């Protein structure tokens, strides 16, 4: 990507015109691409004066109580040391930190090579699926079960680093735990794993057509 392309993409992200997929991919890429993150920050700063064009409006009175409940649910309760703040800033780091923490519970057998892991997060960064890839097989476990919208299905995709289009890994079954062994690609560090909402039977185009429900990036567990 040329600096011009990167800056244009950052500008359109800040403007809000990127589609769901493009925005999610850009956020994931910002975790590892400091220049892209800086370009986004610069655009946020350039356009910030426009924020005052929205007329102020009082939120519903019960909203703060709901946010407090959300904090309690999303974040561990305070103990001696306040623990309700996730220490990581955003998607990529968060996923790998959660993955590293949960790895101990999952990896009961010795692995011949460092397995790849991630946690797929919702658009509001809530952990949704634990993903572990060892060899050619990718295993997924739901961290909390959610029903898919009626009349739609959830479809799993992988996007290797450098690839332009994601590859379908099939539909997500009802069970909260399943594994896939793709024949056309091999799990690799940096690969994006995502689940999108699609029409019955899956995407008719071979590309994701619906919004991204969950997304994460594979990285080596334990950093070994």
């Amino acid at each position: 990507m040329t600096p011009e392309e990167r800056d244009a993409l950052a500008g359109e992200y800040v403007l809000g015109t990127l589609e769901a997929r493009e925005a999610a991919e850009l956020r994931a890429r910002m975790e590892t691409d400091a220049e892209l993150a800086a370009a986004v920050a610069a655009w946020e700063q350039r356009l910030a004066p426009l924020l005052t064009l929205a007329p102020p409006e009082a939120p519903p009175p019960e909203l703060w109580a709901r946010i407090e409940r959300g904090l309690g649910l999303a974040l561990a309760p305070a103990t001696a040391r306040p623990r309700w703040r996730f220490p990581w800033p955003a998607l990529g780091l968060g996923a790998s930190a959660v993955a590293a923490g949960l790895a101990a519970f999952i990896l009961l057998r010795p692995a011949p090579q460092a397995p790849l892991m991630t946690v797929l997060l919702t658009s509001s960064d809530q952990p949704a699926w634990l993903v572990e890839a060892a060899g050619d097989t990718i295993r997924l476990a739901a961290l909390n079960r959610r029903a898919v919208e009626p009349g739609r299905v959830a479809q799993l995709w992988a996007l290797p680093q450098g690839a332009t289009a994601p590859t379908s890994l099939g539909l997500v079954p009802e069970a909260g735990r399943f594994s896939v062994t793709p024949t056309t690609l091999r799990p690799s560090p940096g690969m994006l794993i995502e689940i999108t909402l699609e029409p019955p039977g899956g995407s008719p185009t071979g590309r994701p057509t619906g919004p991204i429900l969950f997304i994460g990036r594979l990285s080596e567990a334990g950093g070994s």
Partner: protein
Amino acid sequence: MSDTAALLVRIAGGDRAALHALYKAQSVRLFGIAMAILRDRDQAADALHDGFLNIARRAASFDAAMGAPEAWTGAVIRHAALDIARRRGREMPTDDATLGDRPVEATQLSAIADGEEGARLRSCLEQLPEKNRRGILLAFVDGLSHPQIAARLELPLGTVKAWIRRGLLSLRECLA
């Protein structure tokens, strides 16, 4: 350090009272930002819920050298609102029944924030062709997608995409 920046430092340290203070100080402004994009009070409340959880989680990444804390909190809420707009199917121009209900087109550039940065941005926007400028404001303030802007301005989709991209480029050069 501004009061808001000091609050963000406390929030980064896990201080829930500081988050509440930030909410009390900014929720009316931030709810307005979410409402302009979503035009639905329930969904705007969802955006503030998601956004404040993100503020709690990411306050440590706020860098005062990169801009005002109000710009940072505004950006977090805007992106939470844009995510909700995308989830409800913003890519379909006919899907959004509320489009046009509340024409906050913000052609009143005089409402742009006072101060040096606001004045420069206003002057740069004034130099853009009319439809170019409206496209940028409809996207940033009202959260419209490319197809929605094309419908609103009665221009072909490809033209709108190219104009907005060119408009951003002109703005960057003008502000440099």
